[in-house]
């Protein structure tokens, strides 16, 4: 196990984690692994480093390999650093029919990066993803928990020019997402 002494969740996050663990029966705290990894990713710059995952293993009292196995299985966990604004563009059938490839190509051209890459200034990462359930409002992309739908190239430009999106790391959740049990 790596040294995790530097990894400290905020009090707010720890309270949230403890709240979530209580949602599962006694002894079944491993169930909280997926939400806890989401919280960890939101807290530590949008990705899961080995020490962060080891810390999660420690909190849930499971083996680190159990965390690695899970973190590497699900597509929303980033195992490498990402830019502040992670742009996830859907490209499956319905989005493709409505021009998703052009959206991707446009972002690539605008940001000078390819799918999976991060801009040199660390502001944007482009990731193509599979169906996000937004087929009726295609083409679409997701940044953090926000869906941006019925995209046009102009809308994409607006997004890229929006300084708020790179002010801090995009996250799927915050401390107000879950209610207190």
């Amino acid at each position, binding site marked *: 196990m790596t040294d995790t002494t530097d990894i400290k969740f905020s009090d707010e996050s720890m309270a949230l984690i403890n709240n979530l663990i209580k949602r599962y029966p006694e002894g079944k705290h491993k169930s909280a692994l997926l939400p806890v990894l989401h919280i960890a990713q939101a807290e530590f710059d949008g990705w899961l480093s080995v020490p962060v995952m080891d810390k999660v293993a420690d909190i849930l009292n499971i083996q680190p390999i159990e965390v690695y196995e899970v973190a590497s299985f699900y597509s929303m966990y980033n195992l490498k650093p990402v830019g502040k604004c992670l742009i996830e563009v859907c490209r499956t059938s319905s989005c493709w029919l409505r021009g998703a490839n052009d959206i991707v190509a446009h972002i690539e051209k605008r940001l000078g990066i390819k*799918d999976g890459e991060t801009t040199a200034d660390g502001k944007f990462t482009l990731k193509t993803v599979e*169906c996000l359930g937004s087929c009726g409002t295609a083409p679409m992309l997701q940044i953090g928990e926000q869906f941006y739908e019925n995209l046009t190239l102009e809308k994409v430009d607006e997004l890229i020019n929006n300084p708020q999106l790179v002010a801090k790391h995009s996250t799927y959740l915050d401390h107000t997402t879950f209610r207190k049990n």
Partner: protein
Amino acid sequence: MGRKVLLEHINEAGIQGYDVYRSKGGYASVEKALKTMAPDAIVEEVKKSGLRGRGGAGFPTGMKWSFLAKPEGVPRYLVCNADESEPGTFKDRYLMEHIPHLLIEGMITSSFALGANTSYIYIRGEYFYLVRILEKAIAEAYANGWLGKNILGTDYSLDLYVHPGAGAYICGEETALIESLEGKRGNPRIKPPFPAIAGLYGCPTVVNNVETIAAVVPVVNMGGDEYAKIGLGRSAGTKLISASGHIKKPGVYEIEMGITVEEFIYSDEYCGGILNDKKLKAVVAGGSSVPVLPADLILKTANGEPRLMTYESLADGGFATGTMLGSGGFIVMDESTSIVQNLHTFARFYHHESCGQCSPCREGTGWMEKILHKILDGHGTLEDIDLLWDIQRKIEGNTICPLGDAAAWPVASAIRHFRSEFEDFVKNPTAHREVKYYFHCNNLDTAASYSSL
């Protein structure tokens, strides 16, 4: 106008919140169930209603419920499958976003029927903004006494939690969903045992789709017999259809099962016809997994009967000339669409989503994607088409879970119905690539578009 039982009040301002939902008769099914019905009586009503699983498989819900084992002293679980990830499907998202209390009401009534005291809604991680909405609605339900201890003064107690996934289509398969809910990789379990015997934490578990659970509300309110009168024959009730692709009015429509496909595509009440009044080429009627059908076969069966939006009519003719209602993900393609390229997006999807446990799916999905990519790249051969056919044939039916079939069927049907287009593509790839298929956002040169394939 077809009858609506789920989205009847969807246009009511504030229906997302508790007060308006309650004022429109919300939570009546919980009152009726808890105060006047025995759990088994609810199961009976669901059986009588003819309600079938709305997630894709169409298995009778009442029968699924009656399989649930009830050993003494062992908790039972109801888990709502909100992992909606089948390409072309976004109806559960729509329902949860616009009328979240309907799902919560359904969860309470269904949990009571099944004797579950803890229930979970497993929602795909990409829908985190919906977690927020559901959490708020659940908090409202607790605050108003619909959840928690001794609901409505009865001895029935229920806790309901939302559990987010983290990006894995496979978790829509019920045993993979259970594994994921236990904090593991979303690897489907080898069955038997089925979840009804040993599911979540090894306890008897029912996993039902969002729409199925929501439909329990009208079933209980109006009674099973009344519900069974809606729809057509064994396709009882209404179905939420997610319409997308080349249509004028994409969106979620609640249809009474039995309307014709033609009406659904062309009437202003639903899809409003093909975008830019082009010709219809093909439809994927029930989410990416189901066979694609060309225009003539989706509008009429092989016998020349009008094709109806029912489980039976869509399946008429088997896979030779029919398809499936599936999840109701209705993807429409106009005459300009390349079936080969669309298939490539499906193949890439299944390759990306295969969990990797069993060899035919793990290796076969990637192989099919590579071959399709090769064809799109202009290096395909006629033998590649036969090879694709053979690979899908060897995946189908030979895998642990239905993902293998789901990956195989789109390939099989595309080749079955559009073989000449594949041959044409192989023989003259340049023509296919550069002329026909990139003009949706036409301010980009085609070469740039192609590079992002």
